Protein backbone atom coordinates (compact mmCIF):
# COMPACT_ATOMS: atom_id res chain seq x y z
CA UNK A 1 0.00 0.00 0.00
CA UNK A 2 1.96 2.98 -1.18
CA UNK A 3 0.55 6.41 -0.72
CA UNK A 4 0.56 7.04 -4.47
CA UNK A 5 -1.94 4.27 -5.00
CA UNK A 6 -4.42 5.67 -2.60
CA UNK A 7 -7.68 6.87 -3.86
CA UNK A 8 -7.60 10.46 -4.97
CA UNK A 9 -11.25 10.71 -4.06
CA UNK A 10 -10.47 9.85 -0.46
CA UNK A 11 -7.74 12.45 -0.45
CA UNK A 12 -9.93 15.22 -1.73
CA UNK A 13 -12.71 14.12 0.58
CA UNK A 14 -10.39 14.49 3.54
CA UNK A 15 -9.35 17.92 2.41
CA UNK A 16 -13.01 18.88 2.20
CA UNK A 17 -13.89 17.77 5.70
CA UNK A 18 -10.63 18.88 7.27
CA UNK A 19 -11.60 22.52 7.65
CA UNK A 20 -15.01 21.94 9.28
CA UNK A 21 -13.56 19.27 11.53
CA UNK A 22 -10.85 21.59 12.81
CA UNK A 23 -13.40 24.26 13.52
CA UNK A 24 -15.67 21.73 15.21
CA UNK A 25 -12.81 20.45 17.28
CA UNK A 26 -11.91 23.90 18.56
CA UNK A 27 -15.57 24.76 19.09
CA UNK A 28 -15.99 21.70 21.28
CA UNK A 29 -12.98 22.71 23.33
CA UNK A 30 -14.30 26.17 24.11
CA UNK A 31 -17.99 25.35 24.32
CA UNK A 32 -17.44 22.44 26.62
CA UNK A 33 -18.02 24.25 29.84
CA UNK A 34 -21.62 25.01 29.08
CA UNK A 35 -22.54 22.73 26.20
CA UNK A 36 -21.62 19.13 25.51
CA UNK A 37 -17.96 18.98 24.52
CA UNK A 38 -14.72 19.86 26.20
CA UNK A 39 -11.05 19.12 25.82
CA UNK A 40 -11.50 15.42 25.38
CA UNK A 41 -14.11 15.51 22.70
CA UNK A 42 -12.35 18.36 20.95
CA UNK A 43 -9.07 16.57 20.98
CA UNK A 44 -10.63 13.33 19.84
CA UNK A 45 -12.25 15.04 16.85
CA UNK A 46 -8.83 16.28 15.88
CA UNK A 47 -7.58 12.75 16.42
CA UNK A 48 -10.18 11.29 14.08
CA UNK A 49 -9.14 13.90 11.53
CA UNK A 50 -5.57 12.74 11.85
CA UNK A 51 -6.58 9.16 11.23
CA UNK A 52 -8.51 10.31 8.18
CA UNK A 53 -5.38 12.03 6.89
CA UNK A 54 -3.56 8.77 7.45
CA UNK A 55 -6.22 6.93 5.48
CA UNK A 56 -5.72 9.36 2.63
CA UNK A 57 -1.97 9.50 2.52
CA UNK A 58 -0.35 7.29 5.13
CA UNK A 59 2.11 8.44 7.74
CA UNK A 60 3.96 10.53 5.21
CA UNK A 61 0.84 12.63 4.73
CA UNK A 62 0.37 12.84 8.48
CA UNK A 63 3.90 14.13 8.83
CA UNK A 64 3.30 16.67 6.08
CA UNK A 65 -0.05 17.89 7.35
CA UNK A 66 0.81 17.96 11.04
CA UNK A 67 4.45 18.94 11.21
CA UNK A 68 4.43 18.85 15.01
CA UNK A 69 6.04 16.25 17.16
CA UNK A 70 3.42 14.27 19.11
CA UNK A 71 5.66 14.23 22.16
CA UNK A 72 5.95 17.99 22.11
CA UNK A 73 2.17 18.37 22.04
CA UNK A 74 1.68 15.95 24.88
CA UNK A 75 4.49 17.41 26.95
CA UNK A 76 3.15 20.90 26.51
CA UNK A 77 -0.34 19.72 27.38
CA UNK A 78 0.84 18.16 30.61
CA UNK A 79 2.85 21.22 31.54
CA UNK A 80 -0.08 23.55 30.78
CA UNK A 81 -2.45 21.47 32.88
CA UNK A 82 0.00 21.23 35.77
CA UNK A 83 0.85 24.91 35.65
CA UNK A 84 -2.85 25.81 35.66
CA UNK A 85 -3.06 23.88 38.88
CA UNK A 86 -0.07 25.59 40.39
CA UNK A 87 -1.23 28.99 39.18
CA UNK A 88 -4.15 28.76 41.58
CA UNK A 89 -1.67 28.70 44.42
CA UNK A 90 -0.41 32.19 43.60
CA UNK A 91 -3.55 34.08 44.63
CA UNK A 92 -3.63 31.91 47.72
CA UNK A 93 -6.13 29.42 46.43
CA UNK A 94 -5.93 25.65 46.53
CA UNK A 95 -4.30 23.58 43.81
CA UNK A 96 -6.51 23.53 40.69
CA UNK A 97 -9.06 25.87 42.27
CA UNK A 98 -10.70 27.71 39.44
CA UNK A 99 -11.80 31.26 39.13
CA UNK A 100 -13.35 33.24 36.34
CA UNK A 101 -13.33 36.73 34.95
CA UNK A 102 -16.01 38.31 32.80
CA UNK A 103 -14.62 40.04 29.74
CA UNK A 104 -16.36 41.84 26.90
CA UNK A 105 -15.25 40.67 23.51
CA UNK A 106 -16.22 42.48 20.28
CA UNK A 107 -17.97 39.57 18.62
CA UNK A 108 -19.03 37.27 21.47
CA UNK A 109 -20.21 39.92 23.89
CA UNK A 110 -19.79 39.29 27.61
CA UNK A 111 -17.93 36.04 28.15
CA UNK A 112 -16.95 34.36 31.38
CA UNK A 113 -13.36 33.20 31.01
CA UNK A 114 -12.92 30.33 33.42
CA UNK A 115 -9.44 29.39 34.49
CA UNK A 116 -10.51 25.78 34.11
CA UNK A 117 -10.45 26.47 30.39
CA UNK A 118 -6.67 26.52 30.47
CA UNK A 119 -6.75 23.17 32.12
CA UNK A 120 -9.02 21.95 29.35
CA UNK A 121 -6.57 23.29 26.79
CA UNK A 122 -3.92 21.16 28.40
CA UNK A 123 -6.22 18.16 28.11
CA UNK A 124 -6.90 19.02 24.48
CA UNK A 125 -3.21 19.19 23.64
CA UNK A 126 -2.52 15.86 25.28
CA UNK A 127 -5.37 14.14 23.46
CA UNK A 128 -4.32 15.54 20.08
CA UNK A 129 -0.74 14.57 20.78
CA UNK A 130 -1.87 11.11 21.78
CA UNK A 131 -3.82 10.55 18.59
CA UNK A 132 -0.95 11.86 16.51
CA UNK A 133 1.56 9.74 18.33
CA UNK A 134 -0.48 6.54 18.05
CA UNK A 135 -1.31 7.04 14.39
CA UNK A 136 2.32 7.73 13.57
CA UNK A 137 3.59 4.81 15.58
CA UNK A 138 1.11 2.09 14.69
CA UNK A 139 0.23 3.37 11.25
CA UNK A 140 3.75 3.03 9.93
CA UNK A 141 3.95 1.60 6.42
CA UNK A 142 5.31 -1.71 5.34
CA UNK A 143 5.53 -5.07 6.96
CA UNK A 144 8.23 -4.87 9.52
CA UNK A 145 8.70 -8.59 9.87
CA UNK A 146 12.19 -8.67 11.24
CA UNK A 147 12.66 -7.47 14.72
CA UNK A 148 15.90 -6.02 15.92
CA UNK A 149 17.47 -7.83 18.81
Amino acid at each position, binding site marked *: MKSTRRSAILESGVITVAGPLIVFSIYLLFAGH*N*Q*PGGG*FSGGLVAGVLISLVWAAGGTAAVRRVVPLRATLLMGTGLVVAALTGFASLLPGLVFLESGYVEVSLPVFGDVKVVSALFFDIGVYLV*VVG*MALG*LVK*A*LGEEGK*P*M*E*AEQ
Partner: protein
Amino acid sequence: MSLVMLSVAAILFAVGTYLILQRTLSRVIIGLGLISHGANLLIMLAGSGPANPPVILATETPPIADPLPQAMVLTAIVITFGITAFLLALALRSYLLTGTDAVEDDIEDRRIARHGQSESEREAAT
Protein backbone atom coordinates in the same frame (compact mmCIF):
# COMPACT_ATOMS: atom_id res chain seq x y z
CA MET B 1 -31.30 0.54 36.56
CA SER B 2 -33.23 -1.66 34.22
CA LEU B 3 -33.24 -5.39 33.89
CA VAL B 4 -32.23 -5.26 30.25
CA MET B 5 -29.17 -3.12 30.86
CA LEU B 6 -28.10 -5.22 33.82
CA SER B 7 -28.37 -8.26 31.60
CA VAL B 8 -26.35 -6.55 28.89
CA ALA B 9 -23.63 -5.80 31.43
CA ALA B 10 -23.66 -9.39 32.65
CA ILE B 11 -23.44 -10.74 29.09
CA LEU B 12 -20.63 -8.35 28.21
CA PHE B 13 -18.69 -9.64 31.22
CA ALA B 14 -19.46 -13.24 30.33
CA VAL B 15 -18.46 -13.00 26.68
CA GLY B 16 -15.42 -10.95 27.63
CA THR B 17 -14.39 -13.60 30.13
CA TYR B 18 -14.88 -16.32 27.55
CA LEU B 19 -12.59 -14.45 25.18
CA ILE B 20 -9.79 -13.63 27.60
CA LEU B 21 -9.52 -17.24 28.77
CA GLN B 22 -7.85 -18.38 25.58
CA ARG B 23 -4.57 -17.85 23.92
CA THR B 24 -5.10 -15.70 20.86
CA LEU B 25 -3.85 -12.33 21.94
CA SER B 26 -6.04 -10.20 19.72
CA ARG B 27 -9.09 -12.02 21.00
CA VAL B 28 -7.91 -11.44 24.54
CA ILE B 29 -7.72 -7.74 23.78
CA ILE B 30 -11.25 -7.81 22.37
CA GLY B 31 -12.44 -9.63 25.46
CA LEU B 32 -10.87 -6.98 27.65
CA GLY B 33 -12.68 -4.35 25.60
CA LEU B 34 -16.01 -6.06 26.22
CA ILE B 35 -15.31 -6.39 29.93
CA SER B 36 -14.48 -2.71 30.25
CA HIS B 37 -17.68 -1.85 28.34
CA GLY B 38 -19.49 -3.96 30.90
CA ALA B 39 -17.78 -2.22 33.80
CA ASN B 40 -18.60 1.19 32.33
CA LEU B 41 -22.20 0.16 31.99
CA LEU B 42 -22.29 -0.90 35.65
CA ILE B 43 -21.10 2.57 36.60
CA MET B 44 -23.80 4.14 34.46
CA LEU B 45 -26.34 1.92 36.18
CA ALA B 46 -25.12 3.27 39.50
CA GLY B 47 -26.63 6.59 38.45
CA SER B 48 -30.16 7.18 37.32
CA GLY B 49 -31.92 5.42 34.47
CA PRO B 50 -32.77 7.09 31.17
CA ALA B 51 -32.84 10.84 31.81
CA ASN B 52 -32.13 14.24 30.38
CA PRO B 53 -28.57 15.45 30.07
CA PRO B 54 -27.18 17.32 33.07
CA VAL B 55 -26.56 20.45 31.08
CA ILE B 56 -28.12 23.11 33.25
CA LEU B 57 -28.68 25.93 30.79
CA ALA B 58 -30.10 23.73 28.04
CA THR B 59 -32.45 21.31 29.77
CA GLU B 60 -33.85 21.62 33.19
CA THR B 61 -36.79 19.29 32.91
CA PRO B 62 -36.48 16.39 35.29
CA PRO B 63 -35.40 13.69 35.41
CA ILE B 64 -31.86 15.00 35.11
CA ALA B 65 -29.17 12.36 34.83
CA ASP B 66 -26.65 11.91 37.61
CA PRO B 67 -23.52 13.60 36.20
CA LEU B 68 -20.93 11.88 38.37
CA PRO B 69 -21.15 8.38 36.85
CA GLN B 70 -20.93 10.00 33.44
CA ALA B 71 -17.76 11.80 34.39
CA MET B 72 -16.32 8.61 35.79
CA VAL B 73 -17.21 6.61 32.72
CA LEU B 74 -15.70 9.28 30.52
CA THR B 75 -12.45 9.08 32.45
CA ALA B 76 -12.55 5.31 32.41
CA ILE B 77 -13.18 5.18 28.66
CA VAL B 78 -10.22 7.40 27.94
CA ILE B 79 -7.90 5.54 30.31
CA THR B 80 -8.96 2.21 28.87
CA PHE B 81 -8.35 3.56 25.41
CA GLY B 82 -4.82 4.57 26.30
CA ILE B 83 -4.04 1.18 27.76
CA THR B 84 -5.70 -0.66 24.89
CA ALA B 85 -3.53 1.29 22.48
CA PHE B 86 -0.49 0.23 24.42
CA LEU B 87 -1.65 -3.36 24.51
CA LEU B 88 -2.20 -3.31 20.76
CA ALA B 89 1.34 -2.10 20.26
CA LEU B 90 2.48 -4.88 22.56
CA ALA B 91 0.51 -7.41 20.53
CA LEU B 92 2.08 -6.17 17.33
CA ARG B 93 5.51 -6.30 18.87
CA SER B 94 4.87 -9.79 20.14
CA TYR B 95 3.73 -10.94 16.74
CA LEU B 96 6.75 -9.44 15.07
CA LEU B 97 9.06 -11.15 17.55
CA THR B 98 7.48 -14.58 17.72
CA GLY B 99 5.49 -14.86 14.53
CA THR B 100 2.39 -15.98 16.38
CA ASP B 101 -0.55 -14.19 17.87
CA ALA B 102 -0.56 -16.41 20.93
CA VAL B 103 -0.01 -15.77 24.61
CA GLU B 104 2.76 -18.07 25.63
CA ASP B 105 3.53 -19.64 28.97
CA ASP B 106 6.32 -18.53 31.20
CA ILE B 107 9.36 -20.58 30.24
CA GLU B 108 10.92 -20.79 33.68
CA ASP B 109 7.67 -21.95 35.29
CA ARG B 110 7.27 -24.62 32.65
CA ARG B 111 10.80 -25.81 33.21
CA ILE B 112 10.33 -26.19 36.93
CA ALA B 113 6.97 -27.84 36.48
CA ARG B 114 8.38 -30.38 34.04
CA HIS B 115 11.78 -31.26 35.34
CA GLY B 116 12.17 -29.88 38.79
CA GLN B 117 15.64 -28.75 39.56
CA SER B 118 18.64 -30.34 37.98
CA GLU B 119 20.76 -32.64 40.07
CA SER B 120 23.73 -30.32 40.34
CA GLU B 121 21.58 -27.52 41.67
CA ARG B 122 20.02 -29.87 44.13
CA GLU B 123 23.43 -30.81 45.38
CA ALA B 124 24.51 -27.22 45.68
CA ALA B 125 21.44 -26.49 47.69
CA THR B 126 21.83 -29.30 50.17
